């Protein structure tokens, strides 16, 4: 018999590690651990360390990206249970004004205004939208689009909450590090929190509602109360971002109800890839810095920005995140066959 030559075959790490389901991993070696952890840990480490090395302006961009990121995550949660929102600015604005009003009129400290505006904003928005969760698709979207405009008009017409001037001279964060890291840590926490929520049985029910709401009803689940719960969570996340921005700029005005806050998160989710929270997060981290970088272009900024958006969506309809994920899963190692 001839001496057998060493046979090799390629092995996809992904296939070996993932056993049957998305949640069970079979980890055999340090290499496997690295493979599983790297895409989770590395981007977060970069985001956490970056503010230590970049200056004031770039820090502002990171903060802005995290705010849009929170709005995009909130949008994605609603989308996962079949609610298409064009009203992220509603949640954002309600949180911003709530925190602003508590600061201005009640002189409450930041550690009270932000949590109360987060939960209160979530509750108020869930309550406002509860009657329309029965509406499907575009009808729900239209209502969410109208409400921020309505709020703006009310504030303007009645001159409440500072009227057209807004609420200014509000309390700032005690120091800039708390300011920056509060939003970064919140963004990362919400990202991983929502990811584990959606993979839980609770999240499975939400996704099922988007799939086939009649089948969910016949399984004994009150789909309307589940949708209102999802609205509460999503609106709380966005209201937190609003409350944060109020104290960040020490100001709350009409700008929080601007369409930008509704459109940017949606664009981020589309570019990053809808159907995953990581996609929405990644989209925000790409789009916000891109939009800042384009400021140098002057008048053509918006045109170029839109062209890039359209190109991104056409070139990668699955989204940047799914594309990267797929490539990563195709990563192979060579192993010896005995």
């Amino acid at each position, binding site marked *: 018999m001839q001496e057998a030559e060493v046979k090799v075959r390629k092995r996809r790490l992904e296939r070996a590690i993932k056993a*049957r389901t998305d949640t069970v991993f079979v980890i055999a070696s340090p290499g496997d651990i690295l493979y599983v952890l790297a895409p989770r840990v590395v981007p977060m480490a970069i985001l956490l360390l970056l503010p230590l090395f970049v200056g004031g302006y770039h820090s502002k961009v990171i903060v802005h990206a995290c705010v849009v990121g929170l709005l995009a995550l909130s949008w994605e949660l609603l989308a996962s249970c079949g609610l298409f929102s064009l009203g992220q600015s509603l949640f954002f604005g309600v949180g911003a004004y709530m925190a602003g009003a508590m600061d201005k009129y009640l002189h409450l400290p930041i550690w009270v205004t932000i949590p109360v505006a987060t939960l209160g904003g979530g509750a108020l928005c869930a309550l406002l939208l509860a009657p329309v969760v029965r509406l499907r698709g575009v009808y729900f979207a239209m209502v969410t689009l109208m409400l921020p405009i309505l709020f703006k008009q009310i504030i303007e017409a009645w001159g409440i909450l500072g009227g057209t001037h807004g609420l200014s001279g509000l309390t700032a964060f005690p120091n800039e590090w708390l300011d920056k890291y509060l939003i970064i840590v919140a963004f990362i926490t919400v990202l991983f929190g929502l990811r584990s929520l959606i993979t839980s*049985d*609770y999240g*499975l029910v939400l996704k*099922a509602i988007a799939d086939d709401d009649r089948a*969910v009803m*016949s399984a*004994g689940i009150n789909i309307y109360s589940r949708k209102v719960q999802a609205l509460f969570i999503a609106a709380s996340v966005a209201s937190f971002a609003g409350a944060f921005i109020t104290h960040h700029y020490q100001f709350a005005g009409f700008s929080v109800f601007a369409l930008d806050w509704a459109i940017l998160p949606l664009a981020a989710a589309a570019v990053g890839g809808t159907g995953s929270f990581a996609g929405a997060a990644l989209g925000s981290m790409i789009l916000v810095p891109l939009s800042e970088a384009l400021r140098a272009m002057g008048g053509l900024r918006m045109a170029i920005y839109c062209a890039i958006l359209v190109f991104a969506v056409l070139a990668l309809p699955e989204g940047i995140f799914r594309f990267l994920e797929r490539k990563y899963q195709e990563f192979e190692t060579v192993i010896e066959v005995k």
Partner: protein
Amino acid sequence: MSAETLLKVEGLGKSFGGVMAVSNVDFELKRGDFLGVIGPNGAGKTTLVNLITGFVKPSRGKVIFNGKDITGRKPYDIANMGVARTFQMVRLFHNMPAYKNLIIPLCSQRVRKLRGGKYGERDDVAIDLLDDMGFERTSNVPYKTAGSLPHGYLKRLDLARALALRPDLLILDELFSGMSMAEVAGVLPIIEKLNTQGLTTIMIEHRLRELFRVVDRVMVLNFGVKIAEGSPDQVMDSDEVKKAYLGVDVEIPRGKPA
């Protein structure tokens, strides 16, 4: 088993823009009964199921389940009271692995109560149920995306989803349509066994031979009206039933002249 009434339908009617899909239907089910419902296409069988399960609001009449008036209640409330159904056109969560489809009913209030508020192990319960339905636990079938499974499996998955609710009343809307002979032969004994264990069942079926093997009683609908009710033999002897089926391509079993 006491012969208490589980379901009582009184003068139930539904019109869709003037067309009476179901009109003035009365019937009663005792606990443990097995009722077959037959009738030509468009007779109102599916509408009757939708009326009982709350998916369609009745124009008139009453549905009383377990002593409670459930007329016009929400589908999820009716499901939580113990009425489970399958759909003529399967309604499943096609993007999920097959066994995850069963997690949804397992998350319902009803199952939570029946399991004594015990959470967790839902995956195991789901796999057990699917195994009973012929999705072998040792194969990868239960873990495959539902949308990728053949039709016969989807029908059985729909049945498993209904059973996961641990219903007191099971309503099957043409479960066997599109199933192969072998698949029907696999599922029929399961349904029969569940009924002998006390599960009250309503079965709508075009495949009369299989239906008549398992049911105690048959109700015939035609143009939304109940035209006959009784044992399979009695019903198929009725002139009105023969007339309703005349010219319709349905096999009348036992070789009786149609």
